[in-house]
């Protein structure tokens, strides 16, 4: 079947089998390898992308279900102005080691801050509770997300 998915603002049209999973469409068909593919069982969250503005596990969505819908991946975070604060936060706070979980963590963190600009550490931990990091012990991920929230809050005050 032919499907068209808008990924990071660009429409990608491909012929796929109905059983194609969204994560494979993103990585193989659209060639965007920033989204990672880990457990395949909706446990790890490495495959997290936004579908119509909400973070979802793309290994548990059919590409066909996203036909005509909007997807945002980690490649869509950076703008002409530079890195998104969530990306900067992971740099500043050493929020990654191997980096495998990072794209998913950043997509969830970005969605959290959009909804709740001043999240507590507990709220951050809850938001990423469906995602697994094998390296960092999570503390620096929490700090990175908080850094991004604080950076945005202070830049809005200064603006």
């Amino acid at each position, binding site marked *: *079947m032919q499907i068209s998915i808008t990924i990071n603002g660009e429409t990608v049209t491909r012929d796929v089998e*109905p059983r194609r999973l969204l994560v494979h469409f993103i990585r193989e068909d659209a060639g965007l390898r920033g989204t990672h593919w880990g457990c395949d069982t909706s446990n790890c969250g490495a495959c997290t992308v936004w579908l119509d503005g909400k973070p979802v596990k793309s290994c*548990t969505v059919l590409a066909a279900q996203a036909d005509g819908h909007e997807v945002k991946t980690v490649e869509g975070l950076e703008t002409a102005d530079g890195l998104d604060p969530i990306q900067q936060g992971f740099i500043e706070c050493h929020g990654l080691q191997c980096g495998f979980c990072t794209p998913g963590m950043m997509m969830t963190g970005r969605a959290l801050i959009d909804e709740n600009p001043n999240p507590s550490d507990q709220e951050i931990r809850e938001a990423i509770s469906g995602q697994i990091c094998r390296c960092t012990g999570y503390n620096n991920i929490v700090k990175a997300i908080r850094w991004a929230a604080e950076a945005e809050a202070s830049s809005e005050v200064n603006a």
Partner: protein
Amino acid sequence: MQTPAPTDYVRATSVANAIALLEEHGEEARLLAGGHSLLPMMKLRVARPEMLIDINDLDELRGIKVEGDELVIGAMVTHNEVLESPVLAEHYAIFREAEKVIADPLVRNRGTVGGSMCQADPSEDLSAVGSALKASVVIQGSSGSRTVPLREFHDGPYTTVVEPNEILTQVRVPIRPGAGSAYEKVERRVGDWAVCAAGSFVVVSGGVVTDCGIGLTAVSAEHFCAPEAEAFLIGKAPTDENLREAANLAAAATDPSSDQRGPADYKRHLAGELTFRALKRSAAASQGA
């Protein structure tokens, strides 16, 4: 890499269209809601539908509203929508408390109420919530719709009274002024199925319990409920002693099996303890404490 077996895919345009498609494709067709039960089963090839009928476009299955003295939850309402619903929270705290511990926030963005209920996993949380609240479900087929009490909905693990050519459209919950409710779950880690969970509502009036409901999951309570424990409480003061006795009766209504989540006697102990805690908080909430 886990890949589902080949299948066809079509998007239903209305509930009537979905039912027509189910009739056209017969038993090899499956409705695709949030996909967070069906797709994992398809990846494991435990399920191999030949036709997926996607019902995500059906706005008539969305929304949470009050109709008369009932709360009406559309089958395609997501877990996160239940979690964040002000109208559900206003009437029953149990919804928010249960949803907070169902799967994880990402899964809750996709998984639906109707999908969870029809998957009918014996450890599923919303079945216990619905059973505690004595909810009913509306099931639609080509010859019309029928309303089935949730306590008659399950035919056993993973099976319900929904026929292959029918679709669950709504969950309906009676509004009970003055009711307090609560949910208590023990899970090994975030996102896991319950080791055991218990939910309840209690209405206390004139110092005695006038109405109550108890739901249990993951411990093989028939229809996820404990009617003897409920009957015991009616007309009694919500003292610790009475609540404890009701909780013991609830535990006696379970038949858990030992597995990797724990031995049977531990789970039965949990059933009693969690029922007691849920009842205690429900009764306190009903009395405005």
